[in-house]
């Protein structure tokens, strides 16, 4: 056990920190939902790409830095600390790309990987469906083989980034007769194809960060299928296992959130033992998450595939985050009723609802508990 950086890690950290200090835009970029914001984000991503920092966790032969999980987390801690913009092509870098690297063929990697890094093509995900919910494998979007193409009909939901995405990696049912988890195919769909219709979902918090995507007889070349036809469930599981190598929801992220809440505590309550105990507890929970994660990263860095930690981690941070938000709302007092983030310091109301959604997305917390019960505790499936 050694929690100091190796010389290589230290010099990498140094390099990244220096580079970020020199290159991170000093002004906050506009939202990528706006045309100028999209251009600003693309430009920032291109800068990263040119510096070879677009996907540090990807293998070198595919344009990454070939870094291990610990080094990748060092990178993203620095990235967050430097106040750098949110990554634009997160779903390509974290899911679609690694999946292609692991399950795609040479032509597919050639076709897409480099454009992912440069952000010339932006990606979104088409897994969820309105009728499926937690039972992802019950999806009903159909793909019918017709010569050298797949004809896709159906509907996806909760697609983020789809308003400016160019490609969708999606699961479609290609064999309706097969058992639920078979007969599913993983396919890359051109968002600009005829028959693809993206409709933003207005959310209860008055914003629209997700969309529904409708497919009406969309033609997709069979060469866009990743892995074999009807073997898409396995490919999807590879994709989801890779999901963890994202810069979101790290301990550093929640530490910053807690710092914001501490700043909101009014002077007369800074000696309230209950407030102190709550803040101390959040600190403890964030540190627990940091070292839970570090255990996983250590195992990954030694070539082992930890089984259950991603379920534990997701449960942990999503429920902790809601409680931190709730303390933030309490500290905001009357301001917590205000809608506009410009008036409400920190936009806590907005983030509170997003945080609530985290109990549901990416595998609801009930599903995560089922997984832990069955895979970690060895309790039977069932009721």
């Amino acid at each position: 056990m050694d929690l100091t950086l190796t010389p290589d890690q230290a010099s990498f950290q140094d390099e990244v920190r220096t580079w970020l200090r020199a290159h991170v835009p000093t002004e906050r970029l506009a939202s990528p939902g706006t045309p100028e914001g999209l251009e600003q984000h693309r430009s920032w991503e291109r800068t990263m790409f040119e510096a070879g920092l677009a996907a540090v966790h990807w293998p070198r032969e595919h344009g990454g830095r070939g870094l291990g999980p610990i080094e990748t987390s060092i990178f993203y801690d620095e990235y967050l600390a430097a106040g750098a913009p949110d990554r634009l092509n997160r779903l390509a870098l974290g899911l679609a790309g690694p999946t292609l690297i692991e399950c795609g063929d040479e032509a597919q990697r050639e076709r897409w990987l480099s454009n992912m890094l440069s952000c010339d093509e932006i990606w979104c995900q088409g897994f969820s469906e309105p009728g499926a919910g937690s039972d992802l494998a019950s999806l009903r979007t159909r793909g019918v083989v017709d010569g050298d193409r797949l004809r896709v009909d159906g509907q996806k939901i909760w697609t983020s980034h789809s308003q400016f995405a160019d490609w969708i990696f999606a699961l479609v049912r290609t064999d309706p007769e097969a058992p639920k988890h078979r007969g599913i195919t993983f396919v890359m769909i051109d968002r600009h194809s005829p028959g693809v219709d993206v409709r933003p979902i207005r959310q209860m918090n008055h914003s629209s960060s997700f969309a529904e995507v409708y497919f009406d007889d969309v033609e997709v070349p069979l060469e866009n299928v990743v892995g074999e036809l009807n073997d898409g469930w396995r490919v999807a599981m590879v994709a989801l296992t890779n999901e963890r190598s994202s810069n979101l929801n790290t301990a550093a992220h929640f530490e910053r959130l807690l710092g914001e809440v501490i700043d909101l505590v009014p002077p007369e309550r800074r000696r309230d033992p209950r407030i102190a105990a709550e803040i101390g507890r959040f600190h403890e929970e964030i540190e627990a998450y940091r070292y839970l994660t570090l255990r996983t990263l250590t195992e990954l860095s030694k070539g082992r595939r930890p089984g259950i930690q991603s379920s534990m981690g997701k449960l942990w941070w999503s429920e902790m985050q809601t409680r931190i938000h709730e303390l933030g709302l309490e500290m905001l007092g009357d301001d917590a009723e205000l809608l506009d983030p410009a008036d409400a310091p920190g936009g806590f109301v907005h983030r509170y609802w997003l945080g609530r959604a985290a109990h549901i997305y990416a595998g609801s917390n009930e599903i995560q508990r089922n997984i832990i019960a069955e895979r970690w505790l060895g309790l039977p499936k069932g009721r």
Partner: protein
Amino acid sequence: MDFEFDEDQVAFGAAVRRFLDAKLPPSRLRTIWDEGQGYRHEVWRELAGLGVAGSLVDEAHGGSGGRLTDLVLVLGELGTHAVPEPAVETAVVAPLVLSGFGAPALQQEWLPQIAAGDTIVAVAARPEGARVPDGATADVTLVRSGHEVHLVRPQRVTARPLAGADPSRRLAECDYRLDDSTLVTVDPAASLLIDTAGAAGTAALLVGLCDRLVDLTREHLLTRQQFGRPLAEFQVLKHRLVDVAVAVEAARSLTWNAGYRVGVGDPGAAMAARAAKAAASEAASRAGAAALQLHGGIGFTWEHDLHLWLQRAMSWERSFGIARELRAQMGAELLEAK
């Protein structure tokens, strides 16, 4: 960066586990409990033979010169088996405080005896009216008095034994006659080290104890049938044990970190130890409540072993700081830092 134990550490833990599985089954613990205040710590001497007591004592004084990280898995095993001795006081706090702050003569006198398992150490939070586990039976007591730390022999102790809920604690209310002859140090870092090392060590005990509670409960769920199927098929019961198991993994992670930081003398050791102890106390409290609830009535009987672990858990949850106070301390520091 490497957040795993090395092979030696894992082997040390496994050796202690094998020993305790054989030598300290629940039946033995029951005998020890029945002996009550007169208990003489035979198990401890045998554990010392395995290197437990001297792990943090330097080689010159008969120990193996390790760091707290070397002992974290071992403490976990002691917790899993609910060892009745004051293990953290004797094998963690005393060696670290004496090595760090004691005069050479003091080290020479006590460290070899501690390493050999011949000396049991108690820790008292204040010189008067202190509630001290093993207060009347320890061979020597580390006593805090403000920022001073004293080392007090039994002749200078007035101890009134108390009937505690946990027979392994052998509680006494103690007064200590302190003077220059008992003084170890006036360095405030020594009292802080008592808190920090005590909290980190007790967290490790509690994590091991939690493992026992989770295992017992898991087995009960798998075997006990109700309404024609095992309890383990009822989703509400499954999820309750999941929440416990997740809390235990969180506490385990914090405990590894605290052990490491105490071991290397990291400036963050005090915060890390508080976080670990608070999380371990919380995990133990939830594990105990879930174990009791999921076992049903049988768990409340003296005949069933569950209470052996529950009583020990409740004591250790209180040792070296309860969760709420530790959290308030951490929060106050964070609020002041801003």
